[in-house]
């Protein structure tokens, strides 16, 4: 069933190297909608990524740096990118070789749609 989030998740997972895209509630860490590959544990990624994003946002605010626009986690096996839109966080899991610039552009483009689709909180 198509939801307001489906087009942006489809656009993200079409990027080369992107293996998962999720819309997650920032406060609850619960998946709102996701595009996952078989075997990926969306609930686990969502809970931990939302927690990480929330803490990054609070840390940035505490340091007087303003709002977090884009968060990237780099690990040997891949990357995790996230942007926030109101009460929701858009999370992308990608291979290490992904073009982060393109993913970042897509995420920032999607954030407007995310807010319009109900992310304002």
């Amino acid at each position: 069933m198509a939801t307001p989030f489906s087009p942006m998740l489809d656009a993200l997972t079409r990027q080369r190297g992107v293996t998962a895209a999720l819309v997650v509630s920032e406060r609850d860490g619960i998946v709102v909608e996701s595009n996952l590959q078989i075997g990926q544990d969306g609930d686990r990624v969502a809970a931990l990524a939302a927690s990480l994003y929330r803490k990054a946002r609070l840390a940035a605010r505490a340091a007087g740096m303003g709002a977090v626009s884009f968060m990237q986690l780099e690990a040997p096996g891949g990357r995790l990118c996230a942007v926030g839109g109101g009460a929701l966080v858009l999370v992308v899991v990608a291979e290490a070789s992904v073009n982060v610039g393109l993913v970042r552009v897509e995420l920032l483009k999607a954030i407007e749609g995310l807010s319009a689709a109900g992310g304002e909180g």
Partner: protein
Amino acid sequence: MQMAVVEAWIEAPLKHFVSETGAELALLLHPSGQVLAQHGFARAVDVMSACALAAGIHASSGELGKLLDGRPFRGLHHVGRERQIFLAEALWPRGTYIFLTVFGSESSLGLVRLYFDELVAALVAAAPKEVAPATPALAEHFERDLNRNLAVLFGRA
């Protein structure tokens, strides 16, 4: 905040849960209301009240689930203004237990659910292999057992 357990093998899994989720309170109890472990409570009377309420909520939500869905509801999440509660069944070879936790804005339901699943798996792995025969929580023994467990948790044993 102090953590206290009636049986030592419960402590490590519960400590892991509390440290990973940042839960303010945690309580593991038998459906009869007898406490097995607690974290964050300062007074025995608060543990006793929380156990009684948790057992009551578990029993009533179980019956409600049977009415609506043909089987008991196994988890409950309630959001307050500043804190949230999560109450769920923990199943392991010794039988069914109830887990209650209270968490604030530092944590989230997703994290609590994630580490609750890990807690149950860790308890199953850590539980003594010999399974005690299931004995009903008889009213005549209930208060004695409850008081014994509270005394162990609050250092009066």
